């Protein structure tokens, strides 16, 4: 498994744009097409906005990951914010905190391939999500 990490600290709204840009660049270099680049960037946007809106501060980091037959981009979003009490509910469609349709964490899961989340109340949330090149 090859590894190369880059990351963006999220503090202000402008940082969301920086995270998007870094993620899109990496996705492009890996060889994702335009539509997938746009999807990956939208997922990053959602993760970074969640940090910005609900945790106040956090970090988005990127890894190029390699499996036996393909490679992909892994995105990790970490914060030490309030955490999520009911994960099942947050992962359910129509409960998105950002209120919009198709947004929120279910949206991220749809845009990407793999998705994992660990959250503890008052301790923070870590999300790792991967999209593989097909």
């Amino acid at each position, binding site marked *: 498994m090859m590894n190369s990490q880059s990351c963006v600290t999220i503090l202000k709204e402008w940082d969301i744009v920086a995270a998007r840009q870094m993620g899109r660049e990496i996705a492009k270099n890996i060889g994702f097409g335009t539509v997938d680049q746009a*999807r990956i960037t*939208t997922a990053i946007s959602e993760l970074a906005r969640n940090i910005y809106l609900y945790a106040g501060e956090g970090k988005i980091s990127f890894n190029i990951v390699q499996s036996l037959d393909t490679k992909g981009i892994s995105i990790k979003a970490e914060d030490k914010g309030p955490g999520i009490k009911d994960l099942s509910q947050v992962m359910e*469609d*129509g409960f998105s905190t950002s209120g919009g349709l198709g*947004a929120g964490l279910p*949206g991220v899961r*749809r845009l990407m391939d793999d998705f994992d989340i660990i959250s503890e109340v008052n301790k923070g949330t870590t999300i790792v999500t991967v999209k593989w090149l097909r």
Partner: protein
Amino acid sequence: MDTREIDTRNYTALLKKYIETQDEQALYGAEQISKSFIKKNILPEEFVNLHIQALLEIYPDLHDKIKPSMHFLLEAMISYGLAHQEFQNLREKQLAIKSEILVAARMQKMLLQSKIPETDELDIGVISVPANQMNGDYHHFVKGKDGTISITIADVIGKGIPAALSMSMIKYAMDSFPENIMTTDTVLASINRVVERNVDPSMFITMFYAQYKPDTGKLYYSSAGHEPGFYYSSRLQKFKDIESKGLVLGVNPDASYVQDELNLEKGDIIILLTDGVTECRRDNQFIDRTEVIDVIKKYIHLPSQEAVNHVYRHFERLQNFQLRDDFTLIMIKKQV
């Protein structure tokens, strides 16, 4: 050549044709393509991407203008694609719930089914259609050993699944009463106590309970806040309300009811219903009870079962084929 490539070629060819001729046939083609794409779960952003590829092929010299301007649209479409997928997921879940409710509704129907009693004296017709799959209206006929025919019609305030759960309970309770020896007011008083004890306090039930005694030719009845029925006098050729005072079931365990009676002559008609019939809405305006009578009049010459079927079809259409409440209508004609 995979299907995606075929799609791209078709689309480009059709777009080219339209740009040249601007005729309707190409647009009809566009519609058919997009419908088939939706069936194949192709998301709107992929559709836009296809359009971009086609444009670049048709206008290679405009590459520098098309690419950024259309890429912007593609980015914006990602959110529409997400909404599309979220909706699709909901649709699948809905289908699952629907089939679940279908099984529950079948169980309920089996549990609550009531045969129309066989009698030469009365011609009885009944239709009961739930607004959703489960029925919160209830009706039941029993023919006693002495020939007495008892008729129950009830409506749970609220509809759907919770209403249906309460109805099953009512049915268990009613079945446990001794046969026909109670007067109609004491039946309502007893069932009221059962409801008060067992049903969620936020739920109420209205009920009309009647007994037709062939020996006296009279209909005895009591009502627990239920929508009044209609009595048609064949001699006077007039309709009047069948009213009876009484509190809805489940509010006060000590509620008492009164028994009223009607003398039925040959050709007289009793119509019992739930508020799903009288509170039909047309363009969000409730119709009134005289309008219900007008519709019933149109079909009253028919056998009871045909008549209630026609009345139902009339109101189904009036409501644009979307019932807002469970609809139950009983017609009883005295034949001899």
